[in-house]
């Protein structure tokens, strides 16, 4: 155990382009152990792409990602599958397997990776479902769940293998206020009770402010600002202020790039 142990994930000078579009350019992010780290940014800044880079579903064009001090680009396929077992991931809409019941969805990783008895699997699954308050929904099907419930089931599934790192991809999108409150509470609770680290990708400023320990705001492929939610709120940067206060116009312009308005409207007759 040395100084590395405080930093769980380190991203150094990361570049990534999809096609001709440069998504990240010189991105640096440090995620500390035991904290809830939020990654925010306007839509289309590649937040989900970042998660995929951290779990090596995508490979950066340049730069390194360290997890626990290990450069993940050096992992072999077998090591990679083992490495991924350290992560639990909650996808945007839960990504529950539609052909399995709620119970079987949560049991899925156990059935695929372990030889536990049915009795033990039942025990584990019901405990995890109870933790998210859905023990009563064990026999339902994913199509019968509301958006918030589906996400809670997905959270139970993400936890079932006892990961060290929980990743949430846009966990608050499209939820009613009550479900939103439930998820916010669960994120914090899971993180502290289980002693894990959480990474949260979102653009819901309100919710992030209540739950995150540290926030990174990404814009134009790099970190535009970072710090605790209070620090971001108090910042003087125009971009950060626009984002944090949801202002329609600012560095991110209200008008999409277009030719001159007057010329386009009035110049039509001349040609």
């Amino acid at each position, binding site marked *: 155990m040395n100084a590395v142990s405080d930093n769980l994930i380190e991203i150094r000078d990361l570049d990534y382009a999809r096609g001709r579009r440069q998504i990240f350019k010189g991105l640096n992010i440090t995620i500390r152990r035991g904290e809830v780290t939020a990654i925010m940014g306007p839509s289309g800044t590649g937040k989900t792409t970042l998660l995929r880079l951290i779990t090596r579903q995508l490979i950066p064009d340049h730069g390194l990602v360290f997890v626990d001090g290990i450069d993940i680009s050096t992992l072999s396929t077998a090591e990679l599958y083992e490495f991924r077992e350290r992560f639990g*991931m909650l996808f945007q809409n839960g990504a529950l*397997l539609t052909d399995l019941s709620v119970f079987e969805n949560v049991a899925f990783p156990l059935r695929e990776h372990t030889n536990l008895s049915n009795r033990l699997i039942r025990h584990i699954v019901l405990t995890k479902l109870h933790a998210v308050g859905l023990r009563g929904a064990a026999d339902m099907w994913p199509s019968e769940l509301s958006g918030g419930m589906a996400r809670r089931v997905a959270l139970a599934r993400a936890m079932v293998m006892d990961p060290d790192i929980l990743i949430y991809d846009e966990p608050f999108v499209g939820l009613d206020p009550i479900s939103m409150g439930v998820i916010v509470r669960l994120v914090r609770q899971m993180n502290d009770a289980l002693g894990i680290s959480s990474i949260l990708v979102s653009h819901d400023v309100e919710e992030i402010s209540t739950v995150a320990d540290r926030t990174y705001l990404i814009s134009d492929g790099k970190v535009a600002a970072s710090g605790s939610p209070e620090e971001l709120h108090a910042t003087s940067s125009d971009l950060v202020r626009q984002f944090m206060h949801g202002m329609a116009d600012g560095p991110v312009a209200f008008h999409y790039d277009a030719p001159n308005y007057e010329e386009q409207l009035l110049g039509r007759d001349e040609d």
Partner: protein
Amino acid sequence: MLAAFRDLYITFVQFVRTFGALQLFLFRLIMHSPGVIFRRFGLVVGQVYNSGALSLVIIMVCGLFVGAVLGLQGFDTLSRFNAEDSVGTFAGFALIKELGPVITALLFAGRAGTALASEIGLMKATDQLSAMEMMGVNPIRRVVVPRFLGGVIAMPFLVAIFSVVGLFGSQLVAVSLLGVDIGAFWQQLQQTLASEDVYEGILKSVVFGGAASLIAVWEGYNSIPTAEGVGRATTRTVVITAITVLIFNFIITAWML
């Protein structure tokens, strides 16, 4: 002129590339097949049910009517040569060697192939495949291979059922309706039909089953993960399967004769 030539070249290169990728995909499916068959046979059985048992109704209804039409047309044509007793042979050869495998494959593409493509495409569009990968489960092994094998296993049985029901349909029309002698109907067929003819039908059913299942899972797995992309994948499944099956049918027939 040069532009047209370049477009043609690009299309050709793209076709070769896709075809190569399809072969690699098939190779991956085959490599994973033994593991799935021996360790997760339950998954394959489930898919035989989905692709096979659930296609039974459409296969049997269509078989009955195709056979019945063969009975009518066969009787009409053959009676002009005073050979209406050969209706059984006519219908039997047509069903076992050609119409059974071909029409079953086309119906299979429409019923089971589209279901496979849209199911896999939807799983991709709703991140279910990525979620599996994140849980350390290979979606090719868990999702694609069982569906592919299910189709491959189900098709020959569907073809057999189609042909049998079709023969029954033509007997119904020729014997019960048009008064052909039932003994002549079956005996001529029995005498003229060689085992090679049946083998041809079986070979076709296996090849078509493999092709139809492969195209369906390929289109689903490589679909664009949006609602529009999934819709397009199901359409492409039917179109490409139909073309492939008819071309293969010609090649196999020419080769077997």
